């Protein structure tokens, strides 16, 4: 279990640093970094405090605490992915509406110039 916790700690730390570097270089916007930073912090805390994991394993009836950790990791990332799916959907809607409006304005402009409107 210690090795798994160590690996989780390293992954969480790498995620945290990567997101911070991405923020500094303006590769990712602050509002979209919050989900990833939160996920990294949750993983770091769980990896550093095995006692809650053991308690959770006992409570859920799972014999092996690392299994609980894996489920939690999967759960955290599922939530993050779902949040980003929602964001992407909104962006796609906005992008389509914007593209349509640009095309219509361009059409109107051309036809005004041609004297057809």
């Amino acid at each position, binding site marked *: 279990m210690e090795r798994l916790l160590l690996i989780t700690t390293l992954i969480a730390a790498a995620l945290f640093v990567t997101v911070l570097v991405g923020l500094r270089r303006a590769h990712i916007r602050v509002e979209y970094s919050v989900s990833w930073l939160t996920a990294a912090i949750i993983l770091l805390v769980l990896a550093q405090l095995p006692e809650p994991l053991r308690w959770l394993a006992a409570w859920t009836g799972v014999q092996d605490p690392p299994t609980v950790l894996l489920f939690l990791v999967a759960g955290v990332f599922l939530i993050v992915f779902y949040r980003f799916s929602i964001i992407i959907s909104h962006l796609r809607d906005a992008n389509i509406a914007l*593209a349509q409006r640009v095309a*219509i304005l361009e059409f109107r402009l051309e036809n005004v110039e041609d004297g057809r409107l």
Partner: protein
Amino acid sequence: MTQKAPPLAFVHPLLEAGRVLILIPAHNEEAAIGAVVDEVYSLFGKIPVLVIDDGSVDSTAAIVKGRGARVLRLPHHLGLGGALQAGYRLAFELGFEYVVRIDGDGQHDPRFITAMIDAVTQPGVQMAIGSRFVESDEGHTSLFRGFGIRLFRAFLRPILGKPVRDPTSGYVAVDREALEVFSKSFPLEYPEIEALVVLRRRAFQFVEVPVSIRPRKAGRSTITALKSVYYLVHVMLGVLVNILIFDRRRWR
């Protein structure tokens, strides 16, 4: 049964009055679009024709402009639903009372436009669908597509409250009421079937008009077997979502 195209004894008065817009979505249709526009003009004279150029990288727009038709150029490829909605929005803003949509690949015979207008101008009708199967199941469809159409018929029957013979047809005419709805809320991918549900939720009525579908003038269909399966699943899910969805969410 293949429908015989009606002879054109007269140009429909609504067409002559400029109250109908012929909407043609096109994506890389340089090989066919010129002939489609030419055919419409040769049948009906210089009526309003709008080609929506959905991010083509070929000379589709130039060919259309060269023939004197108007082009709505989208800044990038939106897909059929996004392109059609752009056209519906513009048509609504320009005040057109009826819109007839035909495909840019030449499969839709424009001689049926008059019959489509007659159908959509009936009292209480907001949409007309050009149907290959009003009188028979024969037509230019593959085995798989035929299976899909039968599946959609059975699936849509209880939802629409009436049978629809050719729910995947893209030969469509709408009146201004439906035009307003589509200008604000239109399915983005594979829109034909979902559009029926969108209208049904507003208690609008549609009728089917017998038409024949011709082979494509150029190019070939991009629909593969895998895409067909995706299409089936996507459309059925889309229909269910359309039934369940909260209205405000869809009105952009």
